[in-house]
């Protein structure tokens, strides 16, 4: 009878059927011990769709973002993202989608794999035992070379259990050298991080060894750190190792300041690409979910990525974390209603109001940038030199950075609504200032 079985479940405790270790990147093996998590983990192959989340397009290939918003394509001219830039989809696809992107038609570095595969054993191998050294080495390999090694070594899996869990204890932990270096630089800075109490604590301490997210971080924090290993802005190309720009703080302005103070090994100024139309030295922003979330009220209230994207689900008498990582809007009763006891429709409406405002402002800022590009093009035909257009091009860099910061972020403003709107407001203002600088290039 139903109640009997429930009472029984309540009593059963966990037993391991197979041993798992640091080199076990195949989730199927872990799945033997933890079938419930594995089952939900496997569901990340399923197609999902919300107004702004999940992905459009066919089963086979997500829709092209750069065709949905043509201004995106124009702003990326001169960079691989103008060739192919699609909607994200489930974790199960991360490796395959990376291997298939047309962006690989341009030379890409081995660092790309940091966030698209269960790469730790390979890093240890490259760094003979030291994963950080392994990552550092990896940027010198071409993507294709390292990808080949990955497949040989038998670790060609998307993000896997061992990337977030200690195989001995199953405790949550971070593994990615990029994140560890980034969060250590953040801790060493004096940027306020009210949402990361353990960093404040470390700062007040002896500081004899660097901040360690796995031992210093609270469980609540690590429930976001594991995602922060990948859902972040980065530099990842062939001139230097992968880097997370957190040394001056996590906001759009602070990360911009970090890039502005960065130089390439040859001492030249840092940029991701020269804009094909204007020649401006552009900064490319990639999915800064961790950074934007950090500015929001949820982060400040101790609400972690996993609370919304991996909510607990009751499975009979036990609780398991839903490893089908996806849009919380597909899972409102678990993802939101545990804290907000409101009707599901009301919750969805609130999100829609926030995202609609953000989307409107995003389009406005995009239009402003397009007008700036037109003005620069016109100035060129009028004979303006690079030097005369200097101010206009610097303003394009500032405007695009802010616009891209929110466009590339994947919550359509939800993770920090006011901050996202502030950044977009600045983007529009700088783009218009740049347009004016271009129009007035020949006035004193």
């Amino acid at each position: 009878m139903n109640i009997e079985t429930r009472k029984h479940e309540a009593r059963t405790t966990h037993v391991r059927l197979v041993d798992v270790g640091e080199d076990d990147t195949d989730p199927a093996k872990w799945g033997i011990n933890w079938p419930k998590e594995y089952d939900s983990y496997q569901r990340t192959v399923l197609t999902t769709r919300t107004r702004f989340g999940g992905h459009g397009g066919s089963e086979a290939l997500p829709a092209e973002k750069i065709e949905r918003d043509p201004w995106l394509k124009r702003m990326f001219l001169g960079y691989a993202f103008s060739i192919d830039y699609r909607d994200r989809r489930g974790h199960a696809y991360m490796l395959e989608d990376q291997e298939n992107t047309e962006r690989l038609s341009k030379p890409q570095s081995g660092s790309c794999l940091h966030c698209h595969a269960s790469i730790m054993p390979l890093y240890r191998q490259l760094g003979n035992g030291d994963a950080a050294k392994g990552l550092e080495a990896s940027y010198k390999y071409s993507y294709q070379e390292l990808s080949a090694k990955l497949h040989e070594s038998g670790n060609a899996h998307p993000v896997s259990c061992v990337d977030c869990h200690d195989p001995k204890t199953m405790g949550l932990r971070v593994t990615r050298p990029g994140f560890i270096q980034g969060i250590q630089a953040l801790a060493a800075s004096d940027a306020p991080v009210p949402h990361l109490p353990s960093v404040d604590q470390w700062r007040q301490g002896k500081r004899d060894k660097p901040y360690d997210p796995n031992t210093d971080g609270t469980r609540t924090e690590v429930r976001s750190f594991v995602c922060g290993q990948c859902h972040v802005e980065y530099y990842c190309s062939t001139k230097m190792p992968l880097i997370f720009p957190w040394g001056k703080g996590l906001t759009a302005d602070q990360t911009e300041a970090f890039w502005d103070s960065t130089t390439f090994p040859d001492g030249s100024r840092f940029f991701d690409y020269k804009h094909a139309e204007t020649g401006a030295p552009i900064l490319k922003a990639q999915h800064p979910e961790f950074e934007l979330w950090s500015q929001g009220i949820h982060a400040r209230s101790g609400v972690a990525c996993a609370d919304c994207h991996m909510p607990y689900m009751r499975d009979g008498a036990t609780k398991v974390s839903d490893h089908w990582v996806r849009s919380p809007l597909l899972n409102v009763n678990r993802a939101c209603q545990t804290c907000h006891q409101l009707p599901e429709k009301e919750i969805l409406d609130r999100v829609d109001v926030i995202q609609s405002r953000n989307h409107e402002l995003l389009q406005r800022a995009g239009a402003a940038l397009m007008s700036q590009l037109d003005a620069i093009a016109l100035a060129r035909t009028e004979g303006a030199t690079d030097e005369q257009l200097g101010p206009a091009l610097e303003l394009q860099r500032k405007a695009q950075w802010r616009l891209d910061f929110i466009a590339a972020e994947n919550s359509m403003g939800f993770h920090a609504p006011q901050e996202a709107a502030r950044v977009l407001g600045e983007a529009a203002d700088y783009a218009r200032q740049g347009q004016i600088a271009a129009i007035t290039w020949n006035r004193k």
Partner: protein
Amino acid sequence: MWRILIPGAVGLLLGLGAYTFHFAEGLSYFSTDPAACANCHIMQSQYDSWQKSSHHNVAACVDCHLPHAFIDKYVAKAENGYHHSTGFTFQNFHEPIMIKAKNSRILQRNCIYCHEELVGDLAPSAHAGGGDIECVHCHQSVGHGERAGLGGPESPRGRTRSAKHE
């Protein structure tokens, strides 16, 4: 034919009902011991949170959730007992569990029952929806502390009552 089937079916239902109600300590409805509510693990999180709440030593589950008037109490108990038992048996209820409108009204009356003197002078009102603003509009946490929910944050810098007095 029907004559045999129908009573049969009814009998079966009764049997099931009785079995469920009994097995699930449905009888605990006739006790005021909070532990009795927690006989259902599904009530556990409320039980735990209640123990940490400001009221744990002044009010038990029934003080807030069941009418104080003697007769209604048993009606409500029977009614809730039915919801709960069937819900518990068939797992067909909405989660997270949300209080139903009817029980919100009982709750509201119970707040006032104990705090009448304090809130007695609040403005009367001729407005739509009867009048009182729900106590829980501001005092959500009195019964169960802050609503963190399953998987919520474990007190990042004092999301607790004590923090109020820091």
